């Protein structure tokens, strides 16, 4: 299998489509023409992509949180509750992890048990089991746009069903899926699955139904930001090639406000630049600052503090969207009350900070952003060089050789030599940059930052430190 960054033609697309829809009975409920008619009957304010662009024009920071529970009826009420009591700006459906891995039969059993016992047996909304008929009820239940939240290796069928139901965006991208949601699936396979999903989004877009792709480029738990931004650039190029016109980039906060805000700024800037350089000129780019996504504190009010820090980063970096965790993150799938409470905290804090035009110290922010941008460019330019300008070819080679690399990958194909650790201000630095194509200036910068902390605590940073830093936030520290 040889994958390139090349748009699927209609033949390829429709052939693959037929096969995918046939993988489960509810696939037959998808009717593209009917879906387009349905989307066109919806008001613009129910389109996720358009709402984000509006936020950018108005200088807003919108808010949402993750949610997904098994049954249609209860989840409809749940979403309405987030809208009415949480004052959410945007909504979504987290798909359960059985569905994410095509275990549709197990999912149906889980759904049955959930319906029978009234307990949530699945950890998300089983979109394939519910099909278009069930899933569309979510769209009808609320006045806000919904995005499919289903990062995983193969979300082709879920995307078909979700978009046909009225969802107007999807999260997940090749690098995230490959490095965090698979163990032994080849890189090119994951990419090809995403090319299909992006082509499907492009197809809707070409028919006046804008679809937004949420792209993250990796997963930020003590992962230095430049590899994530590089990943997001590559995945954006892949999405754009398939015709995606709306990209919502995720920066995953790690807790240091300056670094997190700089991440938003550099991510936005560099993605736009590389998209244009590769000839994709009419892409709407917006940002999403996502709350710290590692282990959360168990206590509700400690969790409130961590949510606040994330919101502050979102406003400081002028993100169009802030995704907050809930006060029950450490516990389990949040109740609707917990979700609404978390949204209200976030929304009120956004109002407080936005209305005073909150700003971090400029010089610090600029310095951090400048270094980040340099690092990112070195990685991306090398990837593109390896692929002779082809982002897909380059990315696959880069991952094999560690020119692109992330810590704690679940994939056996990722080296995971790269490791991050916190510096004295809690910013994440490379304690090991593996085979990333860095200059000595950059390597020395990170060394210095690490040496500063070593000096302050009087001992060498090592694996033990990494372990400590991974869970520090759950203890309220940074």
């Amino acid at each position, binding site marked *: 299998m040889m994958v390139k960054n090349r748009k699927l033609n209609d033949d390829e697309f429709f052939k693959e489509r037929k096969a995918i829809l046939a993988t489960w009975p509810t696939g037959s409920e998808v009717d593209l023409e009917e879906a387009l008619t349905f989307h066109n009957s919806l008001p613009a304010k129910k389109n996720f992509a358009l709402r984000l662009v509006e936020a950018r024009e108005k200088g807003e920071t919108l808010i949402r949180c993750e949610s997904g529970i098994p049954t249609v009826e209860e989840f409809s009420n749940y979403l309405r509750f987030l809208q009415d009591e949480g004052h959410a700006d945007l909504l979504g459906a987290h798909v359960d992890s*059985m569905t994410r891995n095509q275990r549709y039969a197990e999912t149906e059993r889980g759904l049955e048990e959930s319906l029978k016992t009234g*307990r949530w047996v699945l950890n998300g909304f089983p979109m394939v089991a519910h099909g278009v008929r069930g899933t569309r009820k979510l769209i009808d239940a609320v006045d806000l746009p919904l995005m499919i939240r289903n990062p995983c290796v193969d979300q082709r069928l879920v995307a078909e069903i979700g978009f046909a139901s009225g969802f107007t965006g999807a999260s997940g991208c090749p690098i995230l899926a490959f490095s*965090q949601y*698979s163990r032994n699936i080849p890189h090119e396979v994951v990419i090809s699955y995403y090319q299909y999903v992006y082509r499907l989004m492009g197809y809707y877009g070409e028919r006046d139904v804008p679809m937004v792709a949420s792209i993250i480029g990796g997963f930020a738990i003590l992962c230095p930001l430049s590899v994530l931004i590089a990943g997001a650039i590559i995945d954006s190029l892949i999405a754009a090639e398939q015709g995606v016109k709306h990209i919502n980039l995720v920066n995953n906060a790690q807790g240091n406000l300056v670094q997190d805000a700089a991440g938003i700024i550099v991510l936005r800037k560099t993605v736009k630049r590389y998209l244009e350089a590769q000839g994709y000129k009419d892409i709407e780019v917006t940002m999403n600052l996502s709350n710290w996504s590692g282990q959360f504190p168990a206590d509700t009010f400690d969790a409130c503090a961590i949510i606040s820090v994330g919101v502050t980063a979102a406003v400081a970096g002028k993100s169009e969207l802030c995704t907050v965790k809930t006060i029950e993150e450490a516990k389990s799938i949040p109740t609707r009350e917990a979700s609404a409470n978390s949204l209200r905290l976030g929304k009120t804090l956004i109002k407080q900070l936005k209305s005073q035009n909150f700003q971090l110290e400029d010089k610090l922010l600029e310095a951090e952003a400048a270094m980040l941008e340099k690092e990112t460019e070195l990685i991306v330019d090398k990837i593109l060089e390896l692929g002779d300008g082809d982002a897909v070819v380059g990315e696959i080679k880069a991952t094999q050789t560690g020119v692109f690399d992330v810590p704690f990958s679940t994939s056996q194909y990722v080296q995971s030599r790269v490791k991050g650790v916190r510096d004295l201000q809690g910013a994440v630095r490379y304690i090991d940059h593996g085979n990333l194509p860095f200059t000595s200036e950059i390597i020395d910068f990170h060394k210095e930052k690490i040496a500063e902390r070593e000096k302050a605590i009087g001992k060498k940073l090592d694996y033990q430190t990494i372990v400590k830093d991974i869970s520090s936030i759950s203890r309220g520290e940074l």
Partner: protein
Amino acid sequence: MNEKVHSLKTLVTGVIGEDVHVIGIRILEYALREAGFKIVSLGAQVSQEEFIEAALETKADAIFVSSLGGHARISVPGLREKCVEAGLKDILLYLGGQLTIGDVKWEESEKAFKDIGFDRVYPPDIELATVIRDLEADCRREGVRS
């Protein structure tokens, strides 16, 4: 002396089913290695068959099953039976993570997983030292038994 009881013990570790939450088990593996155990790490998304295969191959003394996503009730039943079938009647089965979804009482949940053949079951806020102490105790007991 006591510390040495496990110096040759081998443990197979992994995250079961479709679950990708590897951070916890990685940290646990690190602590177990430091404590002197031999670790055969399978990583994320490990099937019951893969656990058993690895245990047979490495003559493991215990299987450490992690499950965070809340699907343990779907993913772990049957593992003990398959072990017995494969001739691993006495192998220790440990389970940990965030096993269920919602407000399930811990005692209930612990009992349910012990009933289907797990020797030890842990909640997410468990101290690693406790796990190691339990394991050392179980190893000593196993030692006597075998």
